[in-house]
């Protein structure tokens, strides 16, 4: 069948610059470049180009420019090129359209409609270069009050396990199998260096990374891949994954081609078999079932580590979160509309879930109304792009955030959204051994740790500007936020005043 899909991108190759070195041919995993030996010339299969820019970065003579195909169909706001092409793809394949990364649609990004405060005259801003500035955060269940022994003041209350992070930014769940072992190693080492946590995702933890256990959140998800006593024992935090922002209500599918020998060992499934994660956890059909799993995991680890529960942000997140806290979750994780994935049905990714800002605001408000906010930490993820977003999330009420996409971008990702193909040219979202070498764990660690360091410095500047020297004074402090261009209802849900008020 002849395809009716036009190329997405044009590859412009400057013949005066091209030296036929074939770097682009070797770098491109989508076969957009080919070498014609007869003519000694590099040519393009433009229909294969996904716009990942790997070749552009590696071309030694800067001979390459990737341009978007203008695709000047007759203008139609409803029938945009993407809509037309999705129909063409389905007409040609008859399948569910898959995609990678997070929702790329134009839903309002509330971070961009929130602005932060700063001190002027009546109180001094604090210079983080000269004064202490504290970002340390402890995740875990807190009691409502502390009791002390009378006389010589010493602690009487016994606290549930608390996990310290030096910067309120952690690496989000990305499973081994979806991403490569080198990515996992980079995340683990960067987390250890920055004093924060990374998350295994649901593909288990490779034994060579056990030594980073103190900085590791291990996930227990619907497929239960790679869950065994040692896995739980080495971890700092255990996370039960109920849902994911990119595909609320949908399970996962790691195709057999990605299940290499190492992946097979780590996931505890036969080599080459598809790893199917069911949509629900089949032992959790209700809130009391969740409580059972939470306490089963706490029992299994002798109450030494917090148990987190992760859900996708959906319409009634606030009520669900309240139930999760009462079911024993020590950390609530909310993954928003823009949360990313290694593979999801495009129609789900683009249409299901709610913006994380709204979910966070309503969950924090609800837990406070019920007087149970201190019983669980709240962590959010899904589209956090920079330290400004982090500060706004903390001010809305989050204890910490997860970053997934931002971390991958630090490793080279350019959001070409081909994660589901397993052909990631940047060697991130693939288990192809030749490709995974493209992420060097030493360099990957450096890049990720640098990112966290940069964000920490910026967060300290933001705090200092507000005249605050500890992150807990910003946490849930919505008076330090103002809304710009938001409706009354939006402001009410966010619990934020309009700028100027």
């Amino acid at each position, binding site marked *: 069948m002849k395809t009716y899909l036009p190329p997405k991108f044009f590859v412009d190759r400057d013949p005066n610059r091209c030296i036929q070195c074939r770097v682009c041919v070797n770098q491109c995993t989508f076969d957009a470049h080919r070498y014609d030996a007869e003519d000694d010339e590099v040519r393009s299969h433009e229909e294969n180009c996904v716009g990942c820019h790997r070749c552009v970065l590696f071309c030694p003579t800067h001979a390459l420019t990737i341009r978007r195909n203008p695709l000047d169909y007759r203008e139609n706001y409803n029938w945009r090129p993407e809509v037309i092409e999705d129909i063409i793809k389905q007409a040609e394949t008859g399948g569910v359209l898959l995609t990678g990364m997070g929702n790329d649609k134009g839903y309002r990004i509330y971070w961009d409609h929130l602005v932060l405060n700063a001190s002027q005259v009546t109180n001094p801003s604090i210079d983080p270069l000269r004064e202490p500035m504290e970002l340390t955060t402890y995740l875990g269940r807190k009691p409502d009050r502390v009791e002390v022994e009378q006389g010589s003041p010493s602690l009487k209350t016994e606290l549930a396990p608390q996990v310290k992070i030096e910067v309120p930014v952690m690496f989000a769940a990305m499973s081994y199998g979806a991403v490569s072992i080198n990515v996992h190693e980079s995340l683990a080492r960067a987390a250890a260096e920055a004093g924060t946590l990374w998350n295994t995702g649901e593909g288990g933890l490779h034994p060579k990374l056990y030594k980073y256990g103190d900085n590791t959140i291990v996930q227990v998800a619907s497929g239960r891949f790679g869950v065994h006593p040692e896995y739980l024992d080495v971890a700092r935090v255990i996370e039960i994954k109920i849902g994911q922002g990119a595909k609320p209500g949908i399970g996962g599918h790691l195709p057999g081609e990605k299940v290499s020998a190492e992946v097979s060992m780590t996931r505890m499934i036969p080599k080459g078999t598809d790893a199917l994660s069911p949509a629900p956890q089949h032992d959790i059909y209700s809130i009391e079932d969740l409580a059972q799993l939470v306490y089963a995991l706490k029992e299994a680890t002798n109450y030494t580590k917090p148990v987190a529960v992760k859900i996708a942000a959906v319409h009634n997140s606030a009520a669900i979160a309240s139930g999760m806290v009462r079911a024993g979750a020590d950390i609530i994780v909310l993954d928003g509309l823009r949360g990313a994935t290694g593979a999801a049905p495009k129609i789900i990714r683009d249409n299901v879930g709610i913006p994380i800002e709204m979910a966070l605001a309503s969950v924090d408000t609800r837990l406070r109304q019920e*007087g149970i906010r201190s019983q669980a930490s709240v962590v959010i993820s899904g589209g956090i792009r920079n330290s400004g977003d982090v500060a706004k999330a903390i001010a809305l009420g989050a204890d910490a955030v997860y970053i997934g996409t931002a971390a991958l971008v630090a490793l080279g990702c350019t959001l070409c959204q081909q994660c589901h193909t397993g052909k990631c040219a940047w060697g991130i979202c693939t288990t192809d051994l030749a490709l995974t070498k493209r992420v060097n764990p030493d360099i990957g660690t450096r890049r990720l740790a640098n990112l966290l360091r940069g964000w920490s410095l910026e967060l300290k500047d933001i705090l200092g500007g507000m005249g605050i020297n500890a992150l807990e004074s910003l946490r849930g402090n919505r008076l330090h936020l103002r809304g710009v261009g938001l409706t009354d209802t939006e402001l009410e849900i966010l619990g934020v005043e309009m700028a100027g008020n």
Partner: protein
Amino acid sequence: MKDLGRMNNPYSDDKVLDACSLFGVMDTTGRRFSGKEVVRAIANMHVRGNGLGGGFAIYGLYPQYADHYAFHIMYLSQEGKSEVEAFLKRRFRLLHAEEVPTRPIPAIVYPPLVWRYFLEVDSQECDGQSQDDYVVDRVMEINTGVKDAFVFSSGKNMAVFKGVGYPEEIAEYFCLEQYEGYLWTAHGRFPTNTPGWWGGAHPFNILDWTVVHNGEISSYGINRRYLEQFGYHCTMQTDTEVVAYAIDLLMRKHGLPIEIVAKILAPPFWSDIERRPPSEQALLLALRQVYGSLLLNGPFTVIIAHHGEMIGFTDRIRLRPLTVGVKGPVLYLSSEESAIRLVCPDLERAWIPMGGEPIVGSLHRPLVPREMAIAGGTASDAD
């Protein structure tokens, strides 16, 4: 008299930004003394205020009614007064009521009518509540429910006098030279974002707790939201209110001693905590983990008082001033040392405490004359 702007916060701002002068003096033997020197001291810091608020708290004030709640109430109208008085008669046993004596002076314009009432709680009315909780609820009821009336003092054997004007003018207006107490705190105010209003002057009071405060609490938003979880609703729209409620929660309801409370409101840095011995470290760590939302951030000095105790401390990096002076059993706290020296030229000792370090004067642990073992902690922990 009907000037709402003088008693209500006209812009309904969430918090009031101000810079102020503070002064506190306590005779830790409990000897009562006149407020003349207190007024001289606070007047010496005249330029720290701008005439838009001054006030005093006096403890040991009404020994003749020592066991009765003394309500001081501002009225803007006779209707407000009749309504409140009917309410008080309904909900309390009223022992005595009188207008607070004042003398007209040119600086005080459009003052509200101020009356005081000595009340007893009928234990049957309380319905299981403690008397203190009952009183707090009634104060909230009047302050939020009755137009033109405002209870600004509700403790036993103590009272607050405050209004719009420089503190020395307020003192003259309320004839404070006639009163004696063993503990005085005083406040001169420089609000930057509201014209002064009578209710917004310091000290802020509930039961016998008073707070005078210099500064701005940048963590106000979360402090308030945290306290709301425990049923406190900030109605006064000043950040000083959260200090009072935080103290009430931590000391009265959670039963923590003041030294611990200071470690919650102005905690040591994480890096300092790590250097402490293990048992202290565990305590300080737990306090910050659990009460992080009550950390008072931003520049401030507070002097908090209740019967038998006066506590002063600054924010943890001391962005607002506090000086301590000791002479015999008398403890002075002040924004400026000059004010202490003015009224007590032969101080035994004066020093500036570390950021967040609480200075406590207590009747239980009176200062001994020539006390030299004060260093390194509270002014009174040498017994």
